[in-house]
């Protein structure tokens, strides 16, 4: 499954062989040895090194962290890295839920997408096979129809689809990439970058296995961290730590079930139902009963703007479908609460996205590599460290901040994982 060429290199046990280079202009792919992981560090540092290497091609880098896809708690994280149209600087968007894990399992250590395609395409990355597929039939479709379309075409409902909606296709600065149906933490308009490249989606699925160098020691360490994680279900502890009102209580009339990202004991997402009763547990004929509320920042804006909970969730669904930055969109919508579904849809389509993305409880930080997807908990230095470690190791930074993770113990796991000795200072150094 991996390329034979790079299997003897360090850290290959937790990554599959090579870096995939996708030239959308030429309609071709190639593979190169994943040297950056040894030269720059795992995860995002490697991605940044690749970004620098291919900078002239306005690249989008898709990747994952060292532990992504393993049972280390919170090991769900992948990323998309590119030059944000909003700042002109590199910025990262998280791939969480199951997308990060599937990014790791897709069979490529990193994916560099350069250039632009003349016609709409999507990447189908599966078990080390890179396919550039025609996306003409998906052009103009919202993210929900796009996800359904690709899953139907490839015959598998577990394919993870990183896609854009009409906003991304139009190159709007408000565009965000979406993970399947649910939007994402993209506040850097990387969805617009995908749109400019005519890259409608990146579809991921892999049936492989990840090996640790010392599997027993690694597994035991992961379980130790899991046992010590202080976890509350729902948004309660996050809201409490932020000094924000209780999102759980606001969502409760339409809350169906709590959901977690891959390998994460926390439950930072709630599925709400408003097209059927939230108490309905069986699979009915209602194909689209509601929405996964995974973007707490966006939800807080609407809640604190006085929106009715159902209307607010419909608005978030509309933004997710369009492929819009839900935080900026919610901030804008918060000023004018609506209840009529038609007016909500129209208001979403009319969003200007002129304001900066931030949480209701914090002033906007200077835009940088890491956007405000991770809540501003514990002070800037803690927040920055959580992002750096999180994106390197593939651990959700919100989990690191919220659940009392012993960071030193986490970093020690790099040794049985991949023979990598590292520490907080070393990780910080990887970011320059």
């Amino acid at each position: 499954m991996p390329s034979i060429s790079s299997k003897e290199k360090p850290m290959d046990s937790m990554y599959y062989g090579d870096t995939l280079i996708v030239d959308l202009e030429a309609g071709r792919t190639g593979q190169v040895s994943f040297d950056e992981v040894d030269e720059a560090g795992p995860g995002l540092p490697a991605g940044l090194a690749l970004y620098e290497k291919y900078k002239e091609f306005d690249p989008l880098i898709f990747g994952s962290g060292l532990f992504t896809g393993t049972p280390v708690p919170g090991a769900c994280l992948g990323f998309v890295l590119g030059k944000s149209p909003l700042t002109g600087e590199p910025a990262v968007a998280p791939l969480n839920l199951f997308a990060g894990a599937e990014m790791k399992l897709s069979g490529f250590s990193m994916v560099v997408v350069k250039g632009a395609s003349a016609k709409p395409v999507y990447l189908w990355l599966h078990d080390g096979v890179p396919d550039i597929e025609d996306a003409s039939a998906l052009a103009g479709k919202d993210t929900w129809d796009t996800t359904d379309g690709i899953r139907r075409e490839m015959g598998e409902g577990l394919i993870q689809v990183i896609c854009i909606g009409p906003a991304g296709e139009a190159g709007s600065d408000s565009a965000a990439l979406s993970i399947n149906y649910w939007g994402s933490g993209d506040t850097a308009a990387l969805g617009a970058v995908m749109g400019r490249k005519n890259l409608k989606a990146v579809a991921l699925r892999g049936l492989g296995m990840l090996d640790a160098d010392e599997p027993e020691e690694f597994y035991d360490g992961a379980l130790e961290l899991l046992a010590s994680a202080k976890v509350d279900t729902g948004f309660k502890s996050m809201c409490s730590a932020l000094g924000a009102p209780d999102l759980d209580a606001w969502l409760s009339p339409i809350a169906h079930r709590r959901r977690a990202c891959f390998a994460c004991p926390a439950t930072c997402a709630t599925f709400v139902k408003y097209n059927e009763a939230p108490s309905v547990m069986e699979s009915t004929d209602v194909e689209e009963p509601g929405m996964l509320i995974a973007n707490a920042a966006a939800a807080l804006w609407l809640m604190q703007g006085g929106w009715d909970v159902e209307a607010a969730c419909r608005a978030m669904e509309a933004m997710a479908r369009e492929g819009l930055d839900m935080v900026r969109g919610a901030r804008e919508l918060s000023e004018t609460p609506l209840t009529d579904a038609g007016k909500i849809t129209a208001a979403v389509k009319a969003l200007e996205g002129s304001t900066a993305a931030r949480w209701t409880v914090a002033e906007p930080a200077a835009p940088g590599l890491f956007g405000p997807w991770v809540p501003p908990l514990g002070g800037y230095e803690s927040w920055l460290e959580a992002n750096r470690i999180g994106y390197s190791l593939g651990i959700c930074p919100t989990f690191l901040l919220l659940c009392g993770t012993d960071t030193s113990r986490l970093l020690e796991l790099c040794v049985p994982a991949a023979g990598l000795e590292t520490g907080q200072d070393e990780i910080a150094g990887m970011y320059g």
Partner: protein
Amino acid sequence: MRVKAKPLECTGCALCELACGYHWDEAFSLISSSIMLYRAEEKKDYMGLIVKTDEDLFIGRPEGAEAVKLGDLQKGGKGGGASAKPILIREACDLCESSGLEPQCVAVCPHGALYLE
């Protein structure tokens, strides 16, 4: 004694699948465990758990859980069937006895969605 599920406590994190797959293969994947998350109806948020044993399947659907004998034919997409014998892909649950450990899926589940009975 067998592994059972309280489906509504499950949050879909797949830690149980990872732990079980590790028990069988000493590697991390979602393709070789005896316990499986059924999550193919994502838009409906319809999600359940299936535990395969030698003789039956424990199917933990959100609307209720039951043990279903292997080979009982069902048509329609309401949860899973699985092969009757280990054919290199999914082994029947052995409560992690072959590793000499307590059942790992129960141990790792952060929300008590799995238990022994």
